[in-house]
């Protein structure tokens, strides 16, 4: 007994900071991606407190280069590019996280049912094949063009093309575990189907889904920006990185900061999410990590 009791005491004896340092050394990409993301998210949430005015036009101050007063300069309507870039992070992160959450939820339900029930499978997978054959950006453009431009419409339009990818992933996991001895034992023991799905099969999908969620988040942020850039996304009065770039494109040679500030912010966020995803993949799914 005394030996067993001694062990937790040993682990607890290690100072917290040393544990954190060890985690950082072993998972540099998770820490790097997570830190960048946390900083940007904090800036986005705290935007009203420090970023200043993103909307007011001051034509007298148009196309000013970066300075003490306007860190990222001003755009062609005299709006502060720094404030707009900070506010733009709100839309990007909100869309990225919402799309990841919604497509994972939707894909998980469809994938579980499709993988477990053979009759549903054939029909669902053909539908998914069809959806996957349509390039995501075009499908999203078509869906947004139908409705009035709004952030909700953009989220739904990006979620729909992402769902088949999640369904395929979940289905593959379900197919591989449904023959496992413990699932057969549960069936033989008379466990209700919903319980088998939730308790015995669902937990196997969590690790790959967390990884997938980060990649979906990155791709959703890119597609949102592309849709805004093409004028098929978030309404122009809400500052987003995509529509900032679109509105400034005629001023590339005179005021490159109006394009490169939101552009670099966008790339940085996507890079951080991708780094986080790569790190999580290496940690949670070693089999996949070796193949990449």
């Amino acid at each position, binding site marked *: 007994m005394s030996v067993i009791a001694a062990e937790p005491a040993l682990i607890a004896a290690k100072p917290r900071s040393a544990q954190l340092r060890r985690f950082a050394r072993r998972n540099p990409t998770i820490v790097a991606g997570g830190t960048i993301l946390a900083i940007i998210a904090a800036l986005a949430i705290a935007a009203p407190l420090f970023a200043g005015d993103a909307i007011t036009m001051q034509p007298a101050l148009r196309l000013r280069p970066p300075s003490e007063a306007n860190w990222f300069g001003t755009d062609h309507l005299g709006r502060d590019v720094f404030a707009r870039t900070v506010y733009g992070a709100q839309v990007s992160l909100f869309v990225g996280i919402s799309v990841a959450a919604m497509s994972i939820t939707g894909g998980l339900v469809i994938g579980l049912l499709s993988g477990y029930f053979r009759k549903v499978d054939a029909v669902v997978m*053909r*539908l998914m*094949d*069809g*959806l996957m*054959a*349509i*390039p*995501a*950006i*075009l*499908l999203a*453009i*078509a*869906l*947004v*063009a*139908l*409705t009035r431009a709004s952030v909700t419409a953009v989220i739904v339009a990006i979620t729909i093309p992402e769902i088949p990818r999640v369904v395929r992933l979940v289905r593959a996991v379900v197919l591989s575990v449904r023959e496992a001895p413990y699932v057969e034992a549960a069936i033989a023991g008379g466990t209700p189907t919903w319980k088998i799905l939730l308790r015995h099969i669902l937990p196997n999908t969590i690790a790959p889904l967390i990884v997938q969620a980060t990649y979906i988040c*990155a791709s959703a942020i*890119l597609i949102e*920006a*592309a849709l805004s*850039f*093409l*004028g*098929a996304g978030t309404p122009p009065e809400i500052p987003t990185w995509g529509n900032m*770039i679109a509105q400034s*494109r005629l001023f*590339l*040679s005179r005021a*490159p900061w109006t*394009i*490169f500030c939101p*552009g*670099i912010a*966008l*790339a940085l966020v*996507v*890079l951080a999410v*991708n*780094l986080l995803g*790569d790190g999580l993949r290496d940690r949670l799914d070693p089999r996949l990590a070796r*193949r*990449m």
Partner: protein
Amino acid sequence: MLAYIARRLASTVLVMGIVAVFVFLLLHLSPGDPAAIIAGDNATAEQIEGIRKQLGLDDALPVQFYRWLAAVLHGDLGISIFSNEPVAKLISQRIEPTLSLALTTLIIAVTLAVSFGVVAAWKVGSWIDRSLMVVSVLGFSVPVFVVGYMLIYVFSISLRWLPVQGYSPIDQGFGPWIERLILPSIALGLAYVALIARITRTSMLEVLAEDYIRTANAKGVATRSVLLKHALKNAGVPIVTVIGIGVALLIGGVVITETVFNIPGVGRLVVDAISKRDYPIIQGVILIFSGVYVLVNLLVDLSYTLLDPRIRY
């Protein structure tokens, strides 16, 4: 083999059928009256009624779908609402720039990516290998339009090496044509290069660990020949698969690249159609792009037997 091709063709037709249903339903499942959507915000009741009659929107959905599908199969993609011209004609007028951009990108990207991946696998851990990792992470993170504007800013505006924007048809000379396609192809191809190079590296690493590679090296086959003949050919299947899958990336990217570089192609056609809510154009372009994607992947599947004679269907 023939049976396999037949089966594969049948599934392709099925997938395209489902795509057609989706594309058709897009307009009909949207909230609101399709005729009112097409007519726009300022249409009168008579105009909406006229469009409803013209498109036969009062018929049952299956009837409408059958009529639409029959027309599509005859090459009739409908009439553009804004310009009143056949969609098929509008698309065919714009196909040359898009095809040029897609082909130059494909050629540049595949050549670069495969050589990059082969060298990275050959010299694992070298600076080339590590820089491939950087390129691939960046390629997946920096959006096409940001890369595009950076390239324009550096090479066209600052250095003045290349024209800023636009397109010059190939029959007006190869020089001006390729000059205007270099930057768009690089911008569009970056993510594609990242994708293919990464798979090439992984696949090559696996093959290079095989016994027959050691044998070839031991008996003194030139390195170049080992890499290209013994290794690359056997590493081909996953590479070709990813080239096929990545075509989706190209198709999506074409729409954005054409907007950045002001290239009057099919992508611009669809972007202009968004603001005018010219739905037949959007539907037609989606149908054609999806068709190209499905077809490319069919060809990829069929090419496996050429690359790896062990694969028999």
